C-alpha cells in the first residue's frame, strides 16, 4: 500500500529548545483519504500540520515527509516550498477571523491567490472567485467578494478560508481544528463542507481535531496522539469501537460524558516536557498502568496480527484493553 501513499511521514521529531514536542511520529495518507489527528491540546497535533507546511518557526524539525512527486517537505528549500503551498498543499486555520488579513477584502485575498498561483487574469480570477464562493455556500457571492473579514460572521469567514484553501485544487488539505472557534451547529456544516469539497476534488485531507466522535464520523482513519507520540492509529471505526489504548478509551468516554451533559476531561494533565517519564508517557494518568509501564516505553503493536498494511490498526500499550 505504501507506494500509493500521497504523503508518508516518517520519524517526525520536533524540538523547541529542550522540549521535544513531537517524538518519532509516523503516518501516511493515501490519495483521496481523510485522516484525523486526535488528542488533547499540547499533544502536538497542530505542530504536525505546521511542520508539514514548513511554517513552524523557531523549532528544530527532524525526520522525513515524502510528498508524491515533490520530495521531502521537511527539507525542501524555502523557494520550492513557496511553490507547493497553496498549489499542492494548503491549510485551514483554527480561527478564520484571525487568519484573514483585516486590511484587505476577502475577495482580494482570494483573487490574489488565484492570480499568483494559477496565473489567471483579473477577470478570470474574479469569475473563478464567484464560482468558489458559491461552491462553499456563500450566498450573493459577488457582493461578498468586496466585504472585509470583520463584516462576515465566523461561519462565513471559515467558508472564505475553505474557498481560499481549495482555490488551486490542492492534493492535500491540512485543516487545523477548523471549527473550534465556531458554534456547534455551524461546526457540522463546515466539516461536511470540507469533506464534500475534498472528496469531489479527490484531494486528501488531514483534520486536526480533539473530538474523537467527530473524527470517527468524518474521517477514514484516526491517529491518536499523546504528548507528542502516536499511541494508537487505525481505521476510524476500529479505533472508536475496538480501541486498545487506555487513552483512546478516555477520549471516547469523554465524548459519552458530553452526551450526559456532564463534561469530564481525562483526569490529570500531560506531563511537562522536561519531566517526561522514561517509559510510557501516559503511565502517570493511566488506570491500567503496570510496573513495566513506568520504565519501558511500549512499541506500536498491530491490534490484529493477521492483517498487515498501512491501514492496519496499531497501538502502543503494555496492558491493552
Amino acid at each position, binding site marked *: 500500500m505504501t507506494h500509493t501513499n500521497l504523503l508518508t511521514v516518517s520519524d517526525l521529531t520536533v524540538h523547541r529548545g529542550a522540549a521535544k514536542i513531537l517524538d518519532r511520529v509516523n503516518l501516511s495518507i493515501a490519495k483521496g483519504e481523510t485522516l484525523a489527528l486526535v488528542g488533547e491540546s499540547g499533544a502536538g497535533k497542530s505542530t504536525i500540520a505546521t511542520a508539514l507546511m514548513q511554517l513552524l518557526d523557531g523549532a528544530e524539525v527532524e525526520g522525513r515527509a515524502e510528498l508524491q512527486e515533490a520530495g521531502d517537505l521537511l527539507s525542501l528549500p524555502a523557494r520550492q516550498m513557496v511553490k507547493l503551498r497553496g498549489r499542492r498543499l494548503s491549510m485551514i*486555520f483554527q480561527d478564520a477571523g*484571525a*487568519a*484573514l*488579513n483585516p*486590511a484587505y477584502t476577502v475577495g482580494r485575498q482570494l483573487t490574489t491567490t488565484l492570480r499568483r498561483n494559477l496565473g489567471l487574469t483579473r477577470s478570470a480570477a474574479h469569475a473563478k472567485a464567484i464560482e468558489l464562493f458559491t461552491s462553499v455556500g456563500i450566498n450573493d457571492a459577488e457582493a461578498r467578494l468586496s466585504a472585509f473579514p*470583520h463584516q462576515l460572521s465566523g461561519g462565513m469567514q471559515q467558508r472564505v478560508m475553505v474557498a481560499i484553501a481549495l*482555490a488551486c485544487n490542492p492534493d492535500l488539505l491540512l485543516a487545523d481544528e477548523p471549527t473550534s472557534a465556531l458554534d456547534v451547529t455551524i461546526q457540522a456544516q463546515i466539516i461536511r463542507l470540507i469533506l464534500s469539497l475534498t472528496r469531489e476534488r479527490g484531494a486528501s485531507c488531514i483534520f486536526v481535531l480533539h473530538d474523537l466522535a467527530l473524527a470517527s464520523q468524518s474521517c477514514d482513519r484516526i491517529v491518536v496522539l499523546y504528548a507528542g507520540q502516536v499511541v494508537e492509529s487505525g481505521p476510524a471505526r476500529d479505533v472508536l469501537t475496538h480501541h486498545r489504548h487506555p487513552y483512546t478509551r478516555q477520549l471516547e468516554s469523554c465524548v459519552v460524558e458530553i452526551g450526559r451533559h456532564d463534561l469530564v476531561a481525562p483526569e490529570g494533565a500531560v506531563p511537562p516536557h522536561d519531566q517526561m517519564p522514561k517509559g510510557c508517557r501516559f503511565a502517570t494518568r493511566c488506570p491500567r498502568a503496570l510496573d513495566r509501564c513506568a520504565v519501558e516505553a511500549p512499541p506500536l503493536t498491530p491490534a490484529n496480527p493477521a492483517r498487515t498494511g498501512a491501514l492496519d490498526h496499531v497501538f502502543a500499550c503494555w496492558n491493552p484493553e
Partner: protein
Amino acid sequence: MLVQALGKIGQTLVVLFIVSIATFGLLKLAPGDPVQIMLGSEYSQEAYESLTAEMGLDRSFLVQYADWAINFVQGDWGTSFVARTDIFTYGFKEALPVTLTLAFFSLSFAILIGVPLGVLSAVKKDTAFDAGSAVFALTGTAFPSFLLGILLIWFFGVRLGWFPVMGYVSPWEEFWTGIYHMILPGLTLSTYFIAMITRLTRASLIEVLEEPYIAAARARGEPSWRVIWVHGVRNIAMPLVTILGLQLGTLLQGTVLTETVFNLPGIGQMLTSAVLGREYGVVQAGVIMTALLFIGVNLLVDLSYPILDPRLRDRK
C-alpha cells in the same frame, strides 16, 4: 463616517480657539513693554499714550483678541514693528513654505530610511544587523541634532565641498537646486525621526508577523516579500501614522535649531528673532501657524484611520 469627520473638525475648531486665546493671553502677560521698545530710551508721556492707542493696546483683552482674530482670518496680520513689514507676507508667504519644505524633506527621509530599516530589523530579528540598527537608532535619538548639523556642514560642506552649507532655494521653483540645498538640513532634522521610526516599525512589525493571517498568507503560497510588505507593513500603517502626527510637534521644534544652524529663513528663525525683539504680532502669527499645522496634521491623521483600518469604517 461623515458625521464622525464633522465631529472631528468641530473638535479641531474648539482646540484652535483655545490655542489662539492662550497664545494671545500669554504674550500679553509676558514681561517687556513693546511700546517702550519701539520708542527707545527717551520718550514723552504723550508719545507713549498715543502709540499705545495707535497699537490698540489700551482696549480690553477680549476686544483686542476679537479684533486680532478677525483680522487674522482675513489675512491682515499686522506689521512687524521692528522690520516694518507685513507679517502675513513675512510669516505665511515667506517663512511657512521654508519650514514646510524642511519638515517635508525630513519626514520623507525619516520614512524612506526608517521604514525599510525597521522592516529589515524585524525580519532579521536578533541578528548582527538588528543589533547594529538598534545602536544606530539609539545614537540617532541621543545625538543632539544641532551638533549633527554642524558636523555635517563641516564634513560634507567644508571638507568635501559636496553640499551647500547654508541658504534656501525653493525646490518647488528650482527642483534640483532646492533638493540639493535641503539634503543636509533635512538629514540633520530627520536623524531623530529615522531612529524613532526604525524602532517603531521594528516593534510593530514583529508583533504583526506573529498574527495568524501572516501564517495564512504564507500557507497559500505568497512569497516572503509579499508576506512582509503587503500583509505585514500594511498593518503597521496605523501606529506609524499616529506617531508621525504626534511627533510633528517635536519636528517643528527641531526646525528652530536646524533653521538657525543652516540659516534657513523659516518660522523657527522668524520666531527666534521675534521673541528676542518682543514682537507680539510675529510671535502670535508664528505660534498660531505652528499650532494650525500641528492640529491640521493630527486632524488628517484622525481622518485617515478608517482608510488605514477598514474595521473602523463601520463603527457608528
